[in-house]
Structure formats: structure tokens, C-alpha cells
């Protein structure tokens, strides 16, 4: 086994961590890492030290439901609900009867009412700048599983910044969809599940590299547009096939 120069190990570890080391070189380094404990330690150390970047990331407050669910997973009793077990025993018969009634109602309803349309129709959006110039055209697939974005002209992206696409919902915070890279003629994004049901529009914001550090746009909105629904049945079959 060839051993790397100790000093060089550290430089190569940083390049490995940042994806500069590629292809066969990367695979070979990974093989060497498995056999060379010192190299493995240096790479771990490099990763650990770059983790200081994470200390600068804004915190995201967890929801009470998340903590409760985590406690359940860990098997730790929830301090907020110390009497939950005994309460469950008391209320179980009531819940059981209620569940049976609800189930009967649902089955009756489903037997009488035809099923709803399973997917929302295809939609388009013209994303316009604050000066009302159309800068992107968006086509959202039937079912809202994906969105195709086409720039109109060359989008202006400030140096050192990135454009982040957001799904806008009527009564919910915006949901990040992805980034628009330079020199792309068009791009298809998967639509986050959370954004599929209540999508009312799309927007682009200017964000730092890697995107907004918050769960909402932090930079200026350079364009936004409402969704315009199209009848799914009127779309050309080939277009529907491509988008769905």
C-alpha cells in the first residue's frame, strides 16, 4: 500500500471533502482510506473542522409534535403527558366506538358519492418581475408532481448569489423547490409533496450560495406569478405524458 505524504494527506482531504477529487482518484483514495487508519483519521478531522460552518447556520425551531414523536421513538415517556397511559386506558372504549362509527360513515359515503378527481389539472404560470416583465414561464404537471421552468431571455443573477424557486401556497409558508442554474435553457424540478395540494403560485428569490438559510425567502423576490389552471383533458397527450 502506498502511503501519502502526511502534509499532502491534509490537502487532499480538503479536496476530497469539497468534491474536487474525482473518478478513479476519488475511488482510489477511498480504498486507501479503508486500509490506512491515519489517512482515515485525517479525512475525519478535516470534515470535523469544516463543520464549524454549521455553527453559523440559523437554527430552526422544532415543533412540539417533532419532540413528542422523537420521545416516542426513543421510548422515553413524554414529560408533558405524564398521565397519558392511564388516560388511554380510560378512554379506549370511547375511542373504539367512535372509530367504528366514523368507519361506517366513511364506507357509506364512499358507496354513495363518486370518487373525486384524483389529480389537479395541469397549470401554467408566467413569472413576472416587479416591472411586469415576464422572466420565466412555468408549466406544472397534472398532479403537480413536477414543474418545468423556461427562462425568457437570460436571467440576471447577481454575482455570488443563486436564484431559488419557491412554491407559494394560500395559507402556508412558501416551500423551496430548487435552484435555477446559469446557462440553462429550461429545467424540470420535482415538486415537493408539501406543495402539491394548495399551490397558488411560484416565485424566484435571490439567495446566498446553497439557498436561503431560512425556511422562507430571505433575499429580494425578482419575480412571481400566479397559477393558471388548464383542463387536463385538453392538454395534448404527448405533453401530458411528458409532464406527468
Amino acid at each position, binding site marked *: 500500500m502506498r502511503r501519502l505524504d502526511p502534509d*499532502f494527506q491534509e490537502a487532499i482531504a480538503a479536496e476530497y471533502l469539497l468534491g474536487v477529487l474525482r473518478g*478513479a482518484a476519488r475511488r482510489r483514495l477511498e480504498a486507501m482510506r479503508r486500509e490506512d487508519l491515519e489517512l482515515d483519521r485525517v479525512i475525519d478531522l478535516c470534515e470535523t473542522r469544516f463543520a464549524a460552518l*454549521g455553527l453559523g447556520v440559523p437554527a430552526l425551531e422544532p415543533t412540539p409534535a417533532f*419532540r413528542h414523536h422523537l*420521545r416516542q421513538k426513543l421510548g422515553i415517556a413524554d414529560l408533558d403527558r405524564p398521565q397519558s397511559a392511564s388516560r388511554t386506558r380510560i378512554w379506549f372504549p370511547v375511542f373504539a366506538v367512535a372509530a367504528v362509527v366514523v368507519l361506517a360513515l366513511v364506507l357509506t359515503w364512499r358507496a354513495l358519492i363518486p370518487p373525486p378527481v384524483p389529480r389537479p389539472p395541469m397549470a401554467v404560470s408566467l413569472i413576472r418581475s416587479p416591472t411586469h416583465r415576464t422572466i420565466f414561464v412555468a408549466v406544472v404537471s397534472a398532479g403537480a408532481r413536477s414543474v418545468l421552468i423556461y427562462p425568457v431571455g437570460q436571467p440576471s443573477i447577481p454575482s455570488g448569489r443563486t436564484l431559488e424557486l419557491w412554491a407559494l401556497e394560500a395559507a402556508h409558508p412558501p416551500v423551496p423547490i430548487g435552484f435555477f442554474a446559469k446557462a440553462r435553457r429550461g429545467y424540470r424540478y420535482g415538486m415537493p409533496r408539501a406543495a402539491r395540494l394548495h399551490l397558488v403560485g411560484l416565485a424566484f428569490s435571490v439567495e446566498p450560495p*446553497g*439557498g436561503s438559510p431560512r425556511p422562507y425567502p430571505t433575499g429580494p423576490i425578482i419575480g412571481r406569478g400566479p397559477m393558471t389552471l388548464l383542463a387536463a383533458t385538453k392538454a395534448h397527450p404527448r405533453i401530458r405524458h411528458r409532464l406527468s
Partner: protein
Amino acid sequence: MHDDSSLDQLLERFSRGEAAAFEPLYEATAPRLLGVAYRMLRNRASAEEVVQELYLKLWKHPERFDSLRGRAWSWLIVITRRQCLDLLRRTRPETPYESEEGLEELLGPEDRVRENSLLDRVTAAEDARHLKQCLDGLSADHREAILLSYWNGWTVDETARHLGRPLGTVKSWIRRGLQNLKQCLGLKSQYAAP
């Protein structure tokens, strides 16, 4: 924010199975770890999934923490980032490398390290503010290339595609960025000037 030593103690108590340590550990770490995971995954549900998995690992496999005592925050962030990268790689198609290059090329004389270790200096600058100051001092291109690579776990090919720039250019940006980062941290050039 808890410092590493107090966090060490909480982690140790928690990993010994002391349920009472959960609440203070959670209060001290969950918001920041969720922030890191969200930064990478851009999705709250996925971020919560990753952080939940981290606590489960701590609870069930405490031995994994033993070797990194004294670096509790860094270690937690590293594990969070790795789990995020795993999730990203599972959910996005594998991007093949566009070309290959041998290790020999990377071990060329122009890349030899002649000076003190970059990592030693980064250790001294573990204060996130110092590192951030140094990053802020990089040119926008260099900083963007480094941060995109780090936070997304991208290869240089993926970063180049995202930026719409040639592979060699972006590779050079990252290397020069590392070089300048090192200079900011008080060292001489680690890489030969291109």
C-alpha cells in the same frame, strides 16, 4: 449555545441511557441541527427525519461518540451532514463522473504541500465567526464554489454544472479558495500558483 464540554456531559449521560438527559440535550442541540439539515435538504420533513435518526443513533450506539470527545458540536454537525448527504444521494439520480483522472496527476509536484498544515490552522479557527470572516473575504466565485460543494455534497462536476461554468474553472476556484482561506488563517500558500 452550549460549549463542547457541557455538551460532552449531556451526550455522555444520554448515551448511557439516562432519559433525563434527553430534554436538555434536545433543547441545546435540536434547533441548530435542524437548521443544518434544513440548509442541506431544503425540506422540513426530511430535516426532521435526519435529526430524529441522529438522536436514535446516539441512543442506540453510544460507542460512536467515544473517539471524538471535546468536539461535540463539530461531531454532531458532521453526522448530521453525512446523514443529509446519504438522503440526498438516495433521492437524486447518481451523477456519473464525466472523466477520470489518476491519483498520480493529483499527486503532482505542483500540488505538494510545503507549508504547515491547513487543518491545524482551521483547528485554531474553530470559532465559526473566524471561519466565516475568512470565507467572507474570498471572492464571490471562490466562496460560492466552496459553499455549494460543502453544503450540497456535490462533486466539482455537479458544482460546475450548477454554476454553468467549465469544470476546470470551478476546480480552480475551489483550490484557490482553499489557498486564500488558508492565507486568511495565517499560512503561506499550500498550492502552487496556477
